[in-house]
């Protein structure tokens, strides 16, 4: 990580080329339901919010409340029953490499090496030959240079998730959709990776949408935390995290906000 961290701290003009213009995301009055045992199961209930270009927004709520569904809609993998999802004003109809989803599981292709996994997006779009150098850059960014020829089964959980991040970042996404990407990591790796995620975002300035049910994680990373109710998910609160970066986990203002968020989630008595 040393090299990647050093580069982020002192970016040279050439390396700033990774910087992109984040997407302006609008979710307008979206409702969505699944068919479950023949009956519609509503998961999203009149959800509206927007994210400014380059903003880091966390979606916080109880598990199974429909946050992941929302991410799939934004990714273009599913279409909302009612309401609109737009990127820079244009309706999102199909998946696009400018909006990339990172899952809770790294879901690397086990038959591909680390390098081939990271190359996936470039290969799928037929630009791998011209843009191959970006693969090495992305791997360096997540601190995995030297692991190019390893297979996913040889990686630890944290390393695999880093590869998944590199696989997303190599496409220079303008919107990164993170579906509990650190949810399955041990708590120490998780803290490390939160810091790395933040650096990646600060370096590239994509818009980030992070689904999480970890209050501390939301507060440490995001500029805004949108709190969802239980299913069918409504927006219960939209909380601005008015703490400048770099943040410190022990910051009293973060603790205050944490109390507030737990209160909103109905977990007040645990404070």
């Amino acid at each position: 990580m040393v090299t990647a961290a050093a580069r982020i701290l002192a970016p040279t003009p050439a390396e700033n080329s990774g910087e992109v213009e984040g997407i302006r995301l609008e979710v307008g009055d979206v409702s969505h339901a699944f068919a479950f045992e023949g009956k519609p199961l509503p998961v999203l209930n009149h959800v509206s919010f927007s994210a400014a270009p380059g903003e880091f927004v966390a979606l916080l709520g109880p598990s199974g409340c429909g946050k992941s569904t929302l991410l799939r809609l934004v990714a273009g993998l599913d279409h909302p029953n009612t309401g609109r999802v737009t990127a820079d004003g244009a309706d999102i109809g199909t998946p696009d490499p400018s909006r990339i989803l990172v899952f809770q599981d790294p879901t690397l292709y086990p038959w591909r090496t680390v390098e081939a996994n990271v190359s996936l997006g470039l290969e799928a779009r037929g630009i791998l030959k011209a843009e191959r150098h970006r693969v090495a850059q992305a791997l360096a960014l997540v601190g995995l240079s030297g692991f190019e020829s390893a297979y996913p089964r040889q990686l630890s959980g944290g390393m695999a998730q880093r590869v998944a991040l590199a696989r997303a970042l190599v496409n220079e996404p303008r919107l990164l959709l993170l579906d509990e990407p650190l949810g399955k990591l041990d708590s120490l790796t998780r803290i490390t990776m939160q810091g790395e995620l933040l650096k990646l975002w600060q370096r590239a300035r994509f818009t980030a949408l992070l689904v999480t049910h970890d209050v501390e994680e939301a507060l440490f990373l995001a500029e805004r935390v949108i709190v969802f109710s239980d299913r069918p998910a409504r927006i219960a609160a939209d909380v601005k995290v008015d703490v400048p970066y770099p943040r410190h986990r022990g910051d009293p203002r973060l603790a205050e906000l944490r109390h507030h968020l737990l209160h909103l989630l109905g977990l007040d008595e645990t404070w």
Partner: protein
Amino acid sequence: MSTALETLAARPRAAGRLPHLPLLGGAALWLAGAALTFALPDHNEGLTEIARTHELVVLQAGVGLLLAFAAIGLPWLGRVGRITAHWAPWLALGAAGLAAWELVTAKLGLLPLPFFAPPQGLLEVYLDDWPRLGISLWHSVKLLAWGYVIGAALGVLTGISIGWWQQASYWIHPVLRFIGPLPATAWLPIAFFAFPSSWSASVFLIALATGFPVTILTWSGIASVNKDYYDIARTLGASERFLVLKVAVPAALPHIFVGLFMGLGASFAVLVVAEMLGVKAGLGWYLSWAQGWAAYANMYAALLVMAVMCSSLITLLFRLRDRVLSWQKELVRW
């Protein structure tokens, strides 16, 4: 097996000092067998005369001497030496088995000739009839290759189609369910008059027998691919062609290889039946021809060649799989 080889390699025997004892024992047994074959008179009371006894002695003694050299020269033999050393107990057992076989057939006549051929009977077949056996082997391999390759290719394509496209599944699946479980050999009488030659009929039958398991396993492989793999690829801008060729097929390959393995086994069965009943060439034909002439030694000899052929082809398939699926952690070794 590789671990056993490594253990042997890890503690090399002191060069030139002590010969490898299991190999030496094996050598002794082979030489003893040769002595037995040479010293005891043949029990020549049956209808068929026992010949080639001297060649058998030479063979047994030859193997014994080679093993004796190997036992002494093991440190200089490298990889070949390690493999020989690994199989030393089996080589010893082989010597004992061969000697016992020789005793109960050629020497003591406990098992009736000609139904139970003595070892030299097989040796006689290999020495005298090798051109016919060789041509039969060639015909079998050729027929099998045509049928198997066509069947496997069609099976993979069909499996991918029904695993991927709803329409293909709708039309092909019922046909597969109805016809697939039928043993390919049941088609034999129809195939032999429906096709212009018994050879093309056999290719069809072998392809049919191969195609069914390959189709089913490919299909189930495609169906069991983690759906997230597709979502990942789609968000990264993959076309449907990319999803099929670069996601679905590689993910299904472990299943496909199981299908290819099962198909190969099925193809052997059909090959032998087809050659016994219709095709006028091949090892199956050789077997039934030998049976017609009551040439039992020839039957055993052909059976042995057939076993070596089938085993080699399976080994070849497993080697291919190990190469293609090297990313998998644990594979069953053949």
